[in-house]
């Protein structure tokens, strides 16, 4: 980093000492944005220029150009506005945060107001391709309007209003072969002039099917093949694949089998088919309306269980974790380091593995848990099949998973308590019980509050345990296919966005994500208020 002089004494960076302008937040941000803007332009231009020479250059090479430009611009800015220096320390983190967190969040918020989904992905839908029977200016008569499937679109696009479409001109050409020598295939009649031939289909009698061979060049009726056919070919019935001509238009309306398009088609081609795009776009608050409409079957029960889960898992884990930690903190206990090492195992093993073992364990008739219960002559439970017990199972497994963390953190906090306090209390004649409640507990409390709050935030969106243990199940009367007995908000959103039962409704999933974001923010604000974690910061 020889370019940048980050070597000023700290007093230079104090807000009151301003050189070369005002050191306000907005000025700093504006300068940084300017630098980033220039860097982006250089990066994009760099890639563009490189791709002129070698088209295969991947886009991320632009990052390197951008980085170089950024360093130079930043150096220049630093010379003029020295108070910007603290921001340079933040810049790498800021860039990353904005690129890989803020930008995706903004895009997700945008998607929440669209009907973007797996089958409305903005791509051309080949399956909607239907034959064109007649062309009359802007009016096209098509074979079957149901194939065009205009009802699958949503919002203002329903019924193919203003939806993009592609009109195809004929793309195959049947001919006969005359000879094949040195990969030069001569055919009669010759393919139409001005159309590109991409491949030729030849019958291979040896294999009993027609193989496609790429065509690299066409000269009249002589086609140069990309490779020699594997074995003998039959020269009869050769089919050429022509570069299909496709013309993009917009559908204005569809009535029965008559389409109206925005611009008439050129008249010199024979049109055979039309296909529409899976257009998606702005649908207002429709996704949120869907959530509200189903609130009693999804949002409310899921939200309620989400809160209950996060709160109770934290309480259970903390109580048991602190209990074991206090036991292990006894200096007279031999092997305490060994015990701690052994008890930490669930933390060290990848959860994706252990949770699935638990899933097998909890099987009603064939799982180890019920076998143990039965062996002890205790009632067995339908762990994963009953909504209540499934919730219990989630809490149980999360205890197993989360205990090491609470235990370790508590042990750390306990070891920070000076030993002489205990000595002093002991001299005063306090019993072990009294010294625990009088000394350990209050000191632990201050250390535990942040641990429990982090734990709450983590467990509130603990996708793994739900997804891998119960997969949201069991199904319940009140639920939907995507929001079931133990689903929490995030697994519900995942089911909507990325699973078949939700129809890959990314837009709806994004809307739920925004709700989760707002709820998490609210909960965290309460947390910060309770703990005062950010209070001292606000004074600066």
């Amino acid at each position, binding site marked *: 980093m020889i370019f940048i002089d980050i070597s000023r004494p700290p007093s230079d960076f104090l807000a009151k000492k301003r050189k070369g302008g005002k050191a306000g937040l907005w000025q700093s941000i504006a300068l940084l944005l300017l630098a980033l803007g220039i860097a982006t332009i250089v990066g994009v231009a760099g890639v563009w220029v490189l791709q002129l020479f070698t088209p295969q250059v991947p886009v991320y090479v632009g990052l390197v150009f951008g980085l170089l430009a950024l360093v130079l611009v930043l150096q220049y800015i630093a010379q003029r506005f020295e108070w910007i220096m603290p921001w340079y320390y933040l810049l790498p983190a800021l860039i990353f945060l904005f690129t890989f967190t803020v930008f995706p969040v903004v895009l997700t918020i945008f998607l929440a107001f669209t009907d973007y989904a797996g089958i409305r992905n903005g791509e051309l839908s080949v399956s909607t391709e239907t034959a064109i029977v007649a062309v009359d200016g802007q009016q096209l008569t098509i074979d079957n309007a149901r194939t065009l499937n205009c009802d699958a679109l949503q919002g203002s696009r329903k019924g193919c209003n203003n939806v993009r479409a592609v009109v195809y001109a004929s793309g195959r050409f049947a001919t006969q072969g005359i000879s094949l020598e040195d990969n030069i295939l001569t055919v009669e009649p010759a393919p139409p002039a001005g159309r590109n031939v991409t491949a030729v289909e030849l019958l291979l009698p040896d294999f009993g099917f027609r193989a496609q061979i790429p065509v690299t060049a066409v000269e009249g009726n002589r086609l140069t093949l990309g490779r020699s056919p594997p074995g003998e070919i039959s020269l009869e019935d050769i089919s050429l694949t022509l570069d299909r001509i496709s013309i993009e238009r917009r559908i204005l309306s569809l009535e029965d089998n008559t389409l109206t398009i925005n611009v008439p088609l050129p008249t010199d081609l024979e049109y055979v088919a039309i296909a529409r795009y899976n257009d998606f776009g702005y649908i207002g608050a429709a996704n949120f309306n869907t959530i509200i409409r189903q609130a009693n079957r999804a949002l409310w029960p899921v939200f309620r269980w989400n809160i209950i889960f996060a709160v109770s898992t934290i309480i259970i884990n903390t109580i048991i974790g602190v209990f074991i930690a206090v036991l292990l903190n006894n200096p007279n206990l031999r092997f305490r380091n060994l015990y701690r090492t052994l008890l930490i195992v669930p933390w060290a093993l990848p959860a994706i*593995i252990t949770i699935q073992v638990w899933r*097998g364990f909890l099987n009603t008739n064939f799982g180890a848990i019920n076998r143990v219960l039965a*062996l002890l002559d205790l009632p067995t439970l339908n762990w994963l099949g009953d909504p209540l017990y499934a919730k219990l199972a989630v809490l149980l497994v999360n205890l197993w998973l989360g205990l090491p963390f609470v235990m370790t953190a508590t042990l750390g906090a306990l070891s920070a308590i000076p030993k002489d306090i205990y000595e002093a209390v002991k001299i005063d004649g306090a019993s072990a019980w009294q010294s625990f409640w009088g000394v350990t507990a209050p000191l632990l409390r201050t250390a535990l509050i942040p641990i429990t709050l982090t734990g709450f935030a983590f467990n509130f969106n603990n996708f793994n345990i739900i997804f891998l243990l119960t997969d949201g199940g069991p199904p319940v009367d009140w639920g939907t296919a995507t929001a079931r007995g133990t689903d929490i908000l995030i697994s519900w959103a995942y089911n909507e966005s990325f699973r078949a039962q939700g129809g890959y409704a990314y837009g709806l999933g994004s809307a739920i994500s925004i709700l989760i974001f707002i709820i998490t923010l609210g909960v965290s604000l309460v947390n910060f208020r309770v703990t005062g974690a950010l209070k001292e910061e606000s004074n600066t």
Partner: protein
Amino acid sequence: MMRLVPRFLGIISLLAVAAAAMAQSETTRFVTIPYGWLKFLIAFVLITGGIALAAYLYGRFTRPGKALQYAGTAATHMFIWLAILLTFYPVIYLLAVSLNRNNSITAALPTTGNVLFRSGVLPDPSKFSLIQYQTVLGETNLFWYQWVLIGVFILALVAMIALFVAQRGGFDPYRLERWRTYTGWVLFLSVGVLVLSITADQFYTINEAGERVRSSSERKIVLFIRNTLLVSGLTGIFAVLISTTAGYAFARMKFEGRYQTLLTFVFIQMFPGFMALVAIFFLMNALDLLNSYIGLILAYSGGAISFASWIFKGYLESISPSLEEAALVDGTTRWGAFWRIILPISIPMLLFIFLLQFIGTYSEFILANVLLTGEDKWTVGIALRSFTFNRFNTQWGLLAASAVLGSLPILAIFYSFQGALTGQHQAGGVKG
């Protein structure tokens, strides 16, 4: 103390009545010991009480003042062993399934043997075989130098353990420390070179016709472990690199907008990260980084920045700024103070951030699954998931064998750096 006993007995009898009422009348297929819970409880109480009593009596004779404490300690031991048993039960089962030749977790129960085996509480040892491990590892073809590296690694590991034992034995810790550093480097380098040298082409079999047939995904766990180590390691390093300067600026510098930026850092990470999956996918696509480790590492690091900066800031605030201030007075530059003073004293914290990121990334599978499409680039998380999300069934034996192998590196790392992991939780990790 004495008054507690009747109350305790009362609770037990209540439990007995409740359990009897709840016990199912219908016949089940479970092996049951009548009143097993009562027997177990009595046995546990008797054993614990017996040991405690023995300890108490032992204490009476040796140090009468400490007798009660002895009894309490003995009971604590018993309790902790019970907790360890419960903790390890799934782990033992995982091992057993990986040794089961039938690839299933819910197999038929043996009809003979100890009641624990007959009831399925403990895995049936008669079905043990190493076939699953053979399947999973059998098609890994290592070059000779990779075998050498493995040999070096094992030697260094043995040396490390020997040094550890020697330290316990009371050797001079300073001289040992030097040797430990050397061995540590040998360990690190041998694993590093091994990770970099393994390629996807080394996984194949030769079929009857003498052609190389590439292995299927169940047989490439070594490759997936290698991929994961690479991705997790680089992600950890990236997270550390990017977050340290930011944490430093937050902790030690005063500037307009510091509080606002800090708030942005804290709040932006509350967005449920992987729900922006589609957006990240498009971003990576725009950068041509789909199906590449660079893309995955960038995405992981991006998600780690705010947390890591926050931790590092907390850590720096907990240590006194006097050292740097002295250096600054001596004319060291700001960057110099950061580079030469702050970073060296923060190594434990940096290690902690690295490890946290490493462990967090190791078994991640959602983002990896979307960004990596080529099988040769799979990470352990994707591979393990692919065993269970098969069409109908889970190949439990292969899953468990792969899982055991996949856990080994993370277990090793976890326990090697246990001190760094547990010690730092206080330092900064939990502040706010």
